[in-house]
């Protein structure tokens, strides 16, 4: 049995400790907002927060997530400035990579509320988007940053 704290809720799950957090979240907890893209931390679609840091859940063994505070896209409040900015800037197209993009951006702004463009590019470069929403992502992060600073 492994104990997991996800979005403020504690789960006790019967799962082998070498299983990846991504599949435990999706298959055992039924939280499907976190996406599978590559299975080797190449695309960022599976990004979640672990104790406030953005991690790739597809390569995070569930044993190493036990005892940590995990937040998925479902657990990030709807009024979070990043989510609001993503809607205001109309970022998503197909939308599949966007939960990972949102979580990555939220972690960036938590650590650095006023990122320069180069900070944004560096922080977001691990998150692929095949639809090419990159210009919108940049604008949404700048908008969320302004919003967070004015609060």
């Amino acid at each position, binding site marked *: 049995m492994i104990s997991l704290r996800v979005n403020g809720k504690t789960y006790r799950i019967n799962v*082998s400790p070498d*299983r*990846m957090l991504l*599949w435990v979240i*999706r*298959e055992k907890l*039924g*939280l*499907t*907002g*976190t*996406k*599978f*893209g*590559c*299975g*080797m931390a*190449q*695309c960022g*679609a599976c990004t979640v927060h672990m104790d406030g840091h953005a991690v790739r859940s597809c390569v995070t063994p569930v044993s190493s997530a036990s005892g940590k505070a995990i937040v*998925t*896209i*479902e657990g990030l409040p*709807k009024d979070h400035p990043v*989510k609001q900015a*993503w*809607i205001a800037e*109309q*970022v*998503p*197209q*197909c*939308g*599949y*990579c*966007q*939960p990972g993009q*949102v979580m990555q951006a939220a972690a960036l702004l938590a650590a650095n509320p006023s990122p320069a463009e180069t900070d*944004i*590019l*560096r922080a*977001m*470069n*691990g*998150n*692929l*988007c*095949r*639809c*090419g*929403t*990159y*210009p*919108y*992502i*940049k604008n949404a992060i700048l908008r969320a940053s302004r919003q967070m600073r004015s609060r």
Partner: protein
Amino acid sequence: MKTFTRREFIKYSLAGTGFAIALTITPHGYRILQAEEAEADSTFHPNLWISISEDNRVTIIINKSEMGQGVSTALPMIAADELEADWRQVSFVEAPAQPEYADPSMGMQLTGGSSSVRDMYKPFRLAGAAARVMLISAAARTWAVPEGECEAVSGTVRQVTTGRTLTYGELAQKASGLAVPQKPPLKNETQFRLIGLPLARLDIPDKVNGAAIFGMDISVPGMLYAGIARPPAYGARPLAYNKEAALKSPGVVKVFPVPHGIAVVADGIEDVWKGVRALDIRWDKGADPSLDNRSLEKSFMEGLGRRGITALDRGDAAAAGKAPVKIKASYMLPYLAHVTMEPMDCTANVRPGRCDIWAPTQNQTGVLESAAGITGLSPEQIHVHTTYLGGGFGRRGDFGYAAEAIRISKLAGVPVKLIWSRPEDIKYDTFRPGQSCRIEGALDAGGKLVSWSHRVVVPSIFEHFAPQRIKSGVDPTAVSGIVDMDYEIPNLHVEWVKLENPIPVGFWRAVGNSQNGFTTESFMDELARAAKKDPVEFRLALLTKKRHLPAASLIETAAEKAGWGKPPKKGQAMGMAYHFSYGARVAEVAEVSVDEKKGSVTVHKVVCAIDCGPVAVNPAILTAQARGGIIMGLSAALGERVEFKNGGAVSSNFYNYHELRISHAPEIEVHILRNQKTMGGIGEPPLPPIAPAVANAVFAATGHRIRRLPIEPELKHPG
């Protein structure tokens, strides 16, 4: 996003005595009818486009798949505008798969060819207008006043003289008892209230909150997970495998052979993948063990020496022999993978008398027919539920992955969700085929283009998907974008040499135009240099007739907005390209700088001018599609190439298939023009011009002519 079977849908739309409008596309036009009428007529299967509930919910049923291109907003906007609906009350559902939901011009329920808005514009307007007329009539009867005194305004009918109103929900029941007008009056374009506005997309809030359901996210009671152990080489068969070891692997429930490998069914997808590894399969060598990068290159080069099938012969291209200036060039393009962010997946539940399929598909007709073939069930017993698609780009027009899920569910006797790993998704993709071509052009004494002769060597796509589309022996995907160039070229000869090999190919955003846009516009630049003319002036000189106005305006606009002809910023240069495809015209100027030592290209800015006709249903979506198409095309142009070895593809994940990341995304400016009279597409047309615009800019910056893609490896190691 909900999905419905037909019967469930009728039940839903009529629940609470709501009002639903059906509209059937026949070869002779559209027949509009109500849900009850359709339901009562047992020989007639309606397709339903609009329903209005008593609590004023307006649901638009869309027959096109939402894969990011915005149809789930654009199509409802069209219907809602004619309906005079209150946009805040409008939502959408995906139609079930059935013949009546076919695209009227394709005869299939399929999303592709940048056609959704073009093909469905009239049906959705008619459906909305018919409902509006009936709601007005219902109000007039309720008040016992002439219909002429009543008007539809934002989800209500209002009596003009008194100002009293009834909502559509209040009128729904009465409206549903009225006769359906067969030729409802359509609004004129000055009366549009929604069409033309950059409205927020209906699908975005769920996509931002992680609530949108993609194929990957489907869950069915009792569902198991499935995967397939696939061969390293195309066509390879298993010689031996350890079934017992796989069955002993934790969570594995079933192991059995399927047409393309060995299926493993297990409790979770990680169990499936462990089971696949435990199989330890020994494969035979497959269809062509010698297939690799080098053998492919050789076959494309040899193809250039063969005579092809003539696709177009206008004037006398051979007469070019007398022209004073002649140039020729050969180009080579790689195989490309789609790499949709959602790898292929499909959930199927096959049981006696019924089959349900939850598919992120662009091709409902294909999935339905495939299911009928595999299960032996009749189409009425098969229910295809279309989920959101985590990217399409043509990949999901193929339905092989759905057929696999259906077959595995049938053989395993349980509902299964089949998931492809990323390496499977890349290695077993239906690729954008590689291509080589040779072009010969001739200029007259004034430097004007008089002749163009073009030989294309490329595999056929349609012979696998729709052989009936091959006309006079020519696959149109091989020569599209060449035979229909906008330029005035008096003598034009185009021929196709069909290349055959075991590599699966398919439709990749812009299809043949993704290749031919690059080669024609690169060569156009070469011709301009040979004529010692400015590339923009050279093109405009070939676009001087009245019919050329849309094309010429786009080139002029893109050039002007980009500051063409002004001194470039230090170390930067500009390239221009123009292309016509899917009924739309696009000119793009790329501003680049090149680090020749590193062999790297930085694209600073792209200016795009697009004309897809008189109506831009949602200009914000149009702009997003232009930007997305340009970024995908730029990604391919700079770094994408599928690698082959020992009879199969060896590219397998994002570390060895190089997709563009945010750090290399340029600023993109989009200008929408409206000179052409007919509607064009938007999903694909912005893609073809970017590769030649960048390659032409690289030439302007360095004098290095790019005749092979992708550009960056070519700059590092010229081939």
